[in-house]
């Protein structure tokens, strides 16, 4: 009984926190990764830093939307139900928002107003995504080699048009060989 209560209150807390993240995620899921780390590792101690990094890696490597890091944390907290709750929580508030906003924005008579919203949200998104990359790199890269691999990835994407999957395969291979 006590245990059941514990699980329900944990799931409720997971649901509420992730729902709040949803409407703050300018720039998509990547932008909220540090907040997700803070919540799941530092505040709630659902998982440790290592597991967060590993879940992030699995979500990156698996096909599908990048919100799967959230799904995995939910799964860790409360099994299949937890995975469903977490995925639903991160998606529902923003989905309702976009449902009502899309026509409003697309049909705006005043194109200038539309542009102002676009520029402002765009700048917020860039800032949050860059801050997220910085914050997450600091948490999950534990060696100089890992940081170099991150920097190398950035360089490759700047100078080539390689598909990200190749880079993920190369990174995984370097890791298996013990370099990272």
């Amino acid at each position, binding site marked *: 009984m006590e245990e059941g209560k514990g699980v329900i209150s944990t799931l409720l807390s997971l649901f509420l926190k992730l729902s709040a993240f949803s409407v703050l995620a300018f720039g998509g899921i990547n932008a909220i990764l540090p907040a997700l780390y803070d919540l799941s590792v530092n505040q709630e101690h659902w998982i440790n830093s290592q597991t967060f990094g590993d879940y992030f890696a699995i979500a990156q490597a698996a096909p599908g939307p990048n919100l799967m890091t959230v799904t995995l944390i939910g799964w860790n907290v409360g099994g299949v139900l937890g995975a*469903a709750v977490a995925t639903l929580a991160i998606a529902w508030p923003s989905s309702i928002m976009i449902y009502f906003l899309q026509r409003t924005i697309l049909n705006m008579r005043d194109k200038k107003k539309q542009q102002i919203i676009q520029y402002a949200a765009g700048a917020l998104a860039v800032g949050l995504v860059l801050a997220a990359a910085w914050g997450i790199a600091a948490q999950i890269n534990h060696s100089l080699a890992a940081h170099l691999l991150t920097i190398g990835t950035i360089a490759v994407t700047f100078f080539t048009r390689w598909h990200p999957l190749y880079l993920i395969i190369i990174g995984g291979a370097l890791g298996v060989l013990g370099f990272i």
Partner: protein
Amino acid sequence: MSGFGGVLPWARRTIVEQEKWLTAQEFSAMLGICQIVPGPNIVNLAVCVGSRFAGVAGAFAAVLGLTLGPVALVIVLGVLYDHYSYMPIVQGLLRGISAVGVGLIASTGFKMMRNELKYPPMLAVIILTVLAASYFHLGLGWVVLLTSPLAFLLAWKRVKG
């Protein structure tokens, strides 16, 4: 969905080129909106496309179609992870992948920044956001609350100017 390294290119191919649900312009406009509204971009896009054709039911169908498969797969991967994460090879594999993954996020950020460079004052918003989040470790809500007035002010100036 078979979205290795991002679902977007795949979504465009299906929606615009194969099924011809939307024209390329309609798709771009829709994507633009979905990227400025907060939330998982690809879920936002599914809501937009789904609701365009079948209202609320369409939005639900599109989001479920997009997420159910990957959620099931990732749970299986989570189970495998529980069983095999003690192995050094698996640990190394995931360390390598996550280092690349962070790099991919950073380069997405830098690519998005190219648009901002057309109006350099906007860099102030980006710097403020990064400082507030990474240096002062403010919560996400505070960061957005703090930086959005400046973002809107500069966006307004850019459009009026």
